[in-house]
C-alpha cells in the first residue's frame, strides 16, 4: 500500500492495482511442512526439531509475550470470537452460518500452544484487488473515495535475525513503524474508528494492537474482551468482515477491502460514521506494514 501510494504521489504510476490470488488446492498449502529429504541453511536449524509451519514458527513469540505481561488465553479467545461474530453478518464469509462461542473455542484442539484451532487463519482459495489512483482522479469515479492518510512498511533492528535470534523477540515488529504511521496520517490511536488487524494467528493481533498504542501490555486482560471488539458498540471494532479467521484468508488484502468498505459505509458490520479506518498487516514476520484510510472529511 505504501509503495502504491508513493508511486502515484511521485508520478511513476497513474493507477496501481494491488491484488492477491490464492489457489492452495492446486499449488500447495502454506500450513504444511516441507516435503524433501534434506534441508540446508537457516531452516536446517529449525525444521529437524519439528518447527516448520507458520504456527510453529510464531507460537514461541506469543508464549514469551504472554509470559512477560501475564496475558491470559482469554485475550486470544476474544480476538477469535470477534472475527466469528462479524462473519455471521457477512454472507461472503467462509464461516457465515458457523458461529463460535467460548465453550467451542475452549474445547477445540490445540494446533500448537497457545494456538487453538480457532486462533489460526483459514486456508482457502480466493482473490482480492484494490485500485489506487490520485485523489484528484478518484473524484471522477463512481464509488465514494477512500483516502490513504498514511502507509508504512518496514521493521525494527535485526528483526530478520535467523534462528529466532531477533533481539526484540516477543514482538509483532511494529514498534518503530507505528509512530511513523500516526505521524504521517496526523491521527492518534484514539482517532481510529475501526481496525482490521491481520490474524495469521490471534497472538499476532494481540501484539499488533499493543504496539499500535491501543492498549498497554499490562492491560491486555482487561482490553481484550469480545464486547470491546464488536461493531458498532465496542470501543475498538475489530476485523468487521470476519477477517482472516472467519471471512477469508487472502493474506490480508481482504482486510484492506473491509477497511475501505467501512469508509464507504458498505460493511456488513458497519461502524456508524466511520471516518478513520486502520489496517495492520502481517504481524511477526519482517518486513511488516500498516495503513490508515480516511473519508473526505478527514482531509
Amino acid at each position, binding site marked *: 500500500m505504501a509503495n502504491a501510494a508513493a508511486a502515484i504521489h511521485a508520478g511513476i504510476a497513474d493507477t496501481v492495482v494491488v491484488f492477491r490470488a490464492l489457489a492452495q488446492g492446486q499449488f500447495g498449502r502454506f500450513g504444511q511442512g*516441507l516435503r524433501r529429504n*534434506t*534441508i540446508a541453511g537457516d531452516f536446517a536449524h529449525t*525444521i529437524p*526439531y519439528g518447527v516448520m509451519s507458520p504456527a510453529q514458527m510464531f507460537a*514461541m513469540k506469543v*508464549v514469551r509475550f504472554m509470559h512477560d505481561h501475564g496475558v491470559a488465553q482469554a485475550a486470544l479467545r476474544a480476538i477469535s470470537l470477534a472475527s466469528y461474530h462479524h462473519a455471521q453478518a457477512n454472507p461472503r464469509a467462509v464461516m457465515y452460518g458457523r458461529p463460535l462461542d467460548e465453550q467451542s473455542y475452549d474445547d477445540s484442539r490445540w494446533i*500448537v500452544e497457545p494456538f487453538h484451532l480457532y486462533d489460526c487463519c483459514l486456508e482457502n482459495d480466493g482473490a482480492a484487488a484494490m485500485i489506487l489512483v490520485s485523489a484528484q482522479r478518484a473524484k471522477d469515479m463512481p464509488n465514494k473515495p477512500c483516502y490513504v492518510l498514511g502507509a508504512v512498511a518496514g521493521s525494527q533492528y535485526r528483526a530478520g535475525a535467523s534462528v529466532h535470534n531477533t533481539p526484540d523477540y516477543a514482538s509483532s515488529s511494529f514498534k518503530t513503524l507505528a509512530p511513523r504511521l500516526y505521524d504521517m496520517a496526523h491521527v492518534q490511536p484514539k482517532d481510529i474508528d475501526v481496525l482490521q488487524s491481520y490474524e495469521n494467528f490471534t497472538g499476532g493481533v494481540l501484539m499488533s494492537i499493543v504496539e499500535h498504542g491501543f492498549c498497554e501490555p499490562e492491560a491486555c486482560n482487561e482490553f481484550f474482551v469480545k464486547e470491546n471488539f464488536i461493531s458498532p458498540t465496542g470501543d475498538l471494532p475489530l476485523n468487521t468482515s470476519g477477517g482472516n479467521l472467519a471471512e477469508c484468508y487472502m493474506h490480508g488484502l481482504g482486510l484492506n477491502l473491509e477497511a475501505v468498505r467501512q469508509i464507504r459505509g458498505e460493511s456488513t458490520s458497519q461502524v456508524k460514521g466511520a471516518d478513520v479506518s486502520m489496517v495492520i498487516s502481517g504481524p511477526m514476520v519482517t518486513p511488516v506494514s500498516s495503513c490508515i484510510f480516511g473519508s473526505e472529511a478527514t482531509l
Partner: protein
Amino acid sequence: MNNYYLNPGLPQPVATPLDEPYWTGLRNNQLLVQRCEQCNTWQWGPEWICHQCHSSDLIFTATPTQGIVYSYERVWHPVHPALLDQLKNNGAYLVVLVELPQAGSIRMLGNLLGDPHQQVDIGARVEGVYEHHEDAEPAYSLLQWQLK
C-alpha cells in the same frame, strides 16, 4: 527402534560452507557457535559478517551447553507425515528456545527431552544432549535439551 526425540523422516540437515563447523562440532559432542574476533560479539544463526561490527573475522568457538529456557511451544497438530504416528500416540512434542548466558545470550532451538506433557517454565535451567543420527546418510547430529 531408536532413541531420537522425533521420529525419523523429517528433512535432515546438510551443512553449508557457512555453518559446516557447527555441524561437525555436534558430531564430536561439541557446541561451536560464532564469535567475533574483533569485538567479541557472539552470534547465532550463522552469518558471514559480525552483526555488531561488520568484521568478517568470525570464529566458531566452543561454548558449554548450559542454557535457560527463553520460550517454548507444545506442538499438537502434525504438518508432516513423518510425525503423524508420533503425535497420534504421544499427543504432542516440545520445542524450546534456549538462551546461552555463557555465549552472549544467543538463542538455540531444540526439543525438550522427556514427557511431552511436562510443565515448561520460562527461566528453567537446561543442558544440552547430543542426539547422534548414525544411521542417516550422511550421519548427522542434533542438539537437544533436558531440564537440569
